[in-house]
């Protein structure tokens, strides 16, 4: 227990912000997806740290982390399929060029 809880939280928050930045700054749909995945995994660090430091007797944080992993996988699968399908019809996955719907 030498490392204080706040260190984990700071790392998680930093990773979350990096992912956040990636989502906002990147134009490639796959890179945006990677940013989102980073955000999800940053939160997982939070869950595990909280589990260890706040209530280690109940493994709720671990369970939540497993579900987040599973959901992230499902989202990645669906997202990649969508991106491939778009690439086939448009020949681009740059979100600046995917701008048919507006107004």
């Amino acid at each position, binding site marked *: 227990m030498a490392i204080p809880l706040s260190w984990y939280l700071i790392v998680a928050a930093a990773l979350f912000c990096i992912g956040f930045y990636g989502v906002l700054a990147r134009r490639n749909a796959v890179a945006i997806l990677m940013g989102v995945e980073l955000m999800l995994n940053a939160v997982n660090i939070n869950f595990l740290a909280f589990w260890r430091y706040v209530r280690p007797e109940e493994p709720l944080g671990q369970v939540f982390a497993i579900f987040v992993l599973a959901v992230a*996988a499902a989202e990645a*699968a669906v997202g990649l*399929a969508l991106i491939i399908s778009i690439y086939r019809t448009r020949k681009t996955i740059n979100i600046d060029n995917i701008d048919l719907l507006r107004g």
Partner: protein
Amino acid sequence: MMIDYLPLLILFVVAAVFAAIAIIMPSLIGPKNPNKMKQEPIESGMIPFTDARQRFPVQYYMVAVLFILFDIEVVFMYPWAVLLNKLKVFGLIEMGFFLLILLIGYVYVWRKGAFEWD
């Protein structure tokens, strides 16, 4: 306070030393007779036939997507396996339902022909 981080430091040192040995030792004691073949990137003993930066056929994505889904389901079995002795028949039935639903998805994917390469 700082003494608590000693195991961490030792771990780093051991890892660094191990990596350094693995890199330095072969160049010191290994036989050296370079030829063109050896300069090629390694591809499991095969001769690489193209550059790595090429487009992959879409079938790879299909397999990758299916792999992610069925791979991640196994994660749920670890906590279940740890507790199976206590959960007994109840746990077995629950996992049976979980696998049944997964199996229906598997049958669907199979009948759709997603496992066929062409």
